[in-house]
């Protein structure tokens, strides 16, 4: 009796992967097609980028601080007093390559991905999606493409902003703890490479696409009333967060440690 359940689940997963793949393909084609929905794209840049600044600032600041704290304790305890200044490159590497892209990805998934699912889901249940079709507007071109492009651009921008906030906060924490600022800065600048930052930004761009596609997909799939919108919103956040965490590991594994290696 377990076989039908297993095959049903497998079938369902395949179907959903297919739906997401198809949506991604159609969105990519529509991003390059003219006429573009420039007005909506600019609105989305503001929605994804500018309105996420506060939450990204707080997350990056405290992410940087806690990472700096643990690194400081590690060096202080296991290597010895005075060695804490060598934590600078480790903190910067960890923040730019892993912590900030993930934190920004998860924050934007929670803030923007859920809003996309809720907005498009409400449009679906109030027949606004059908109205778009009836008025000659393809919802993928009108709704999904500008959101995806905006996320693809703004999540890396937010990540770069978060990198700066995190690194600066970590620096002030270390200086506040009496670490030699010259040695700390020199080590950081000596060992942190441009590729470390770029690698994090590439990941962030991919996370941006995941957030927009999953949020839009859940919105377009919404059925029922307010309950359906609630379910779509929750699923959008949960699915995109899980995909971000899984993708992050594989991207870190696949991406070269240094450019040219």
């Amino acid at each position: 009796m377990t076989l039908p359940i297993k095959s049903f689940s497998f079938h369902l997963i395949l179907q959903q992967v297919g739906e997401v793949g198809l949506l991604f393909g159609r969105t990519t084609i529509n991003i390059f097609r003219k006429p573009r929905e420039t007005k909506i794209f600019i609105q989305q840049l503001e929605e994804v980028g500018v309105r996420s600044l506060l939450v990204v600032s707080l997350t990056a600041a405290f992410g940087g601080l806690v990472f700096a704290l643990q690194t400081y304790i590690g060096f202080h305890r296991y290597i010895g007093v005075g060695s804490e200044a060598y934590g600078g490159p480790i903190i910067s590497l960890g923040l730019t390559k892993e912590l900030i892209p993930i934190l920004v990805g998860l924050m934007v998934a929670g803030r923007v991905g859920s809003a996309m699912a809720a907005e498009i889901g409400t449009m679906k249940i109030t027949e606004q999606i059908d109205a778009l079709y009836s008025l000659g507007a393809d919802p993928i071109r009108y709704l999904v493409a500008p959101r995806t492009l905006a996320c693809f651009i703004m999540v890396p921008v937010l990540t770069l902003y978060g990198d700066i906030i995190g690194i600066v906060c970590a620096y002030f924490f270390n200086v506040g703890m009496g670490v030699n600022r010259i040695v700390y800065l020199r080590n950081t600048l000596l060992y942190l490479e441009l590729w470390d930052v770029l690698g994090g930004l590439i990941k962030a761009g991919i996370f941006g696409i995941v957030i927009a596609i999953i949020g839009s997909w859940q919105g377009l799939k919404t059925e029922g009333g307010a309950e359906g919108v609630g379910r779509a919103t929750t699923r959008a956040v949960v699915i995109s967060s899980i995909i971000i965490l899984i993708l992050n590991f594989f991207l870190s594994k696949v991406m070269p440690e240094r450019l040219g290696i």
Partner: protein
Amino acid sequence: MIRINDLHKSFGQNKVLQGINLHIQNGETLTIIGQSGSGKSVLLKHILGLIRPDRGSIIVDGVDICGSSEAELNNIRRKFGLLFQAAALFDSLTVAQNVSFGLERYRDLSPKELQKRVKETLAMVGLREIEQLMPHELSGGMKKRVGLARAIAYEPEIMLYDEPSTGIDPIRADAINELIIKMKQEFRITSVVITHDMISAYKVADRIAMLYNGKIVAVGTPEELRKSDNQIVQQFIHGRAEGPIKEW
């Protein structure tokens, strides 16, 4: 001309349309009546290609929309205007942006012409000085009329009305009936009107079709339907609880 042939549609176990056959002539107003949940709106969405049938075909001016691609459907949809049951105005756009939405896509107009056309269309449905309001600032009846203005703004050849008089007062409902008749007389627009309102049905229709149990059980002029000996039709048009229709 619209020809609907042997149209079938099920949602899970629920067989909504079970072999619909209808021919709608150019310039004609056909009213489809039937109980709530009988599949009238589903039929309307099939005509516009928003839902694909399980079986059957819908031929619009010689093109089978059931076998058309999305791009072909987009071209065919230019012929249509649809008034939604709950208006379906875009929440994030102003009234003017809602009304000009189809115009911007279907007609090549300058911003000034666009603005003028929006004003004129709103005036046609009895609305003035509301261009900058958002949909949430409108009453239900106003939303419906803005939805109608949006649908007729780009002068479609075929108008589909989903419950045009529901949710508005009898005087406004009659004004909308007059508008449906005026559009037919002045622009020779073909119309498909879905309604429960028999006053509206008698007033606007050239022919009335009744949908029951997923099938068209009667088609004829308003006079022919009034005189029909079909008990289902008689029960519905007289609004009686007693009769062959038990599901209510």
